[in-house]
């Protein structure tokens, strides 16, 4: 497959970056290097789509961000904390209609393939056992996968959200060294996210390694506090069905709420709740509603220093 000479263009898999409907008219496509021995694919008249359905990469974002910047949700936490499981559980709740209400309805996603891959491990297919999603391995230098969801409010406003699904190792490296070379992805999330979810793993905090788990969470909390600059943050206790000692809970709360007193706190678990009715885990829908209700702060422009009352001469060098 001959790739386009522009580094940002992934034709012929997706549409031409410059917008040429017929690729053969695009000067960058014409200027590409032919691979030796490769055959030029027959120019079919089929239309390709600008999104592939998998988790969005940084270049793919242009398609969903073109109209309005989606709200970016950064899920940060050490490895195995349950970040991917949280996202997978949300997708399954949306799929079962439990996350939507009269006030907010699901309105589509451009990364169904990515969501289904993340949630596939939690879903029963005949003959296979569900399992937690496979450990997302750290891929140095590559961007985290962004999963897209759109919702429409009761007042007919559509809103897009991007959920960053990143390996925990990135955040651990970033917590230690803000400028670490292989924490590029964590820096991207820290820079772009509009809301942070700091995941505290109850299972790790009650296991034999609870000391080092607490230590890495404290480092991450301090780093987030320094980098977040007033953006909303929530402390999320995952696997909350596993009890942790009160001393540990106090230590973690002190680390998080001490540096970020406005942080919200949630406990989530995928274990079904005790009372009957629809199985929706515990705390997942509340956390999702809180996240979806976040709005960016409006930008306030500085006051105008006008030199004259006449609009034509308002901004001048006099």
């Amino acid at each position, binding site marked *: 497959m001959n790739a386009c000479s522009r580094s940002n263009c992934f034709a012929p898999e997706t549409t031409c970056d410059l917008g040429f409907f017929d690729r053969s008219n695009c000067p960058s496509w014409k200027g590409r290097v032919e691979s030796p021995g490769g055959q030029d694919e027959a120019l079919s008249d089929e239309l390709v789509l600008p999104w592939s359905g998998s988790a969005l990469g940084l270049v793919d974002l242009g398609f969903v961000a073109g109209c309005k910047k989606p709200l970016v949700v950064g899920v940060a936490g050490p490895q195995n904390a349950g970040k991917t499981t949280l996202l997978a559980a949300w997708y399954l709740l949306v799929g079962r209609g439990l996350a939507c209400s009269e006030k907010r309805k699901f309105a589509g996603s451009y990364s169904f393939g990515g969501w289904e891959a993340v949630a596939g491990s939690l879903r029963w297919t005949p003959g296979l056992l569900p399992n937690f999603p496979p450990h997302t391995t750290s891929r140095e230098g590559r961007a985290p996968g962004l999963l897209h969801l759109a919702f*429409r409010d009761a007042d007919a406003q559509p809103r897009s959200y991007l959920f960053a699904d990143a390996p925990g190792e990135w955040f651990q490296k970033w917590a230690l060294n803000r400028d670490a070379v292989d924490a590029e992805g964590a820096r991207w999330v820290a820079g772009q996210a509009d809301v942070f979810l700091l995941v505290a793993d109850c299972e790790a905090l009650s296991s034999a390694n609870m000391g080092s788990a607490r230590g890495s969470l404290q480092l991450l909390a301090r780093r987030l506090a320094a980098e977040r600059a007033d953006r909303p943050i929530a402390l999320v206790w995952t696997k909350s069905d596993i009890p942790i000692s009160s001393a540990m809970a106090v230590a973690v709360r002190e680390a998080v709420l001490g540096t970020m007193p406005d942080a919200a706190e949630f406990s989530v678990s995928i274990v079904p709740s005790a009372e009957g009715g629809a199985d929706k885990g515990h705390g997942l829908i509340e956390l999702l509603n809180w996240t979806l209700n976040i709005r960016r702060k409006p930008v306030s422009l500085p006051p105008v220093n006008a030199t004259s009352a006449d609009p034509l001469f308002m901004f001048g060098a006099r």
Partner: protein
Amino acid sequence: MRAKSNSILIIGESGVGKTHYGAQVLKRLMKGDGQLRMDGAAINLQPFEAAMESLNEGMAAGHTATTTYVDSIWPIADAGGAKGELVWPDYGGEQIKSISSTRRIPSAWRVRVLSSPAWILLVRLQQTLVSDDIFSRPLSALRGASSENREVRISDQARLIELLQMLLYVRGAISSERLRTPRLCVLLSCWDELSTNECPTAALEQRLPMFANFVASTWDRPMVFGLSALERPLSPHNRDTDYVARGPEQFGYIVLPNGERSPDLTLPIQRLLVGDV
């Protein structure tokens, strides 16, 4: 109804019942007791000849060949006397599956998507499932289970929504407001398989909740009807004696949004073309 050609885009995968519905609609138009009726005689009835023959004999119609795509043009008139032409397609459902899986839209389909003012999406609820997931079993059953490689098979709801997203993109109908065109009608086909008395919207929300939400968010006033074109399963080999005796025109119903049944199979089409709620 306008006097120009009204082409309906029918979207349905293999096995949802496009051919049976088309044949039954044709027979209802010729019978003439519904909202729409045939105005004179259609020039060419050949595309549905085989299906009508099978139904006359009380047998299921054969599978439409994959590469077939034939438009039938039927002159129709509505109850008020306004006349027009209905363009009704029949095609092999594998074409839709191929669009979904290869994510490429052939240019012939692109033309159809762009030009049709109304879309009918046929969904056979019995064929789609919402898979069971982790919430239906206790967590303790999972500990110790080893992770295996599994291929990701996209769920039915996601596949349907992605198909509609692709067609909307091709049409350029991505907007921050709910869509008024193209008008959408979701027909829940093979309704008799469900053995339920729910109203169609509730049945859709219960079985395909994410898809129902998507349709309600994206379209201004989508219509959801239940459809049973045949009223009972027919075999491709054994005759159904009732059908032979009474004729297929006596069978088939749609389920209105309030749950009532009506034998008028042309009602959804009339509502779509006129733009009524």
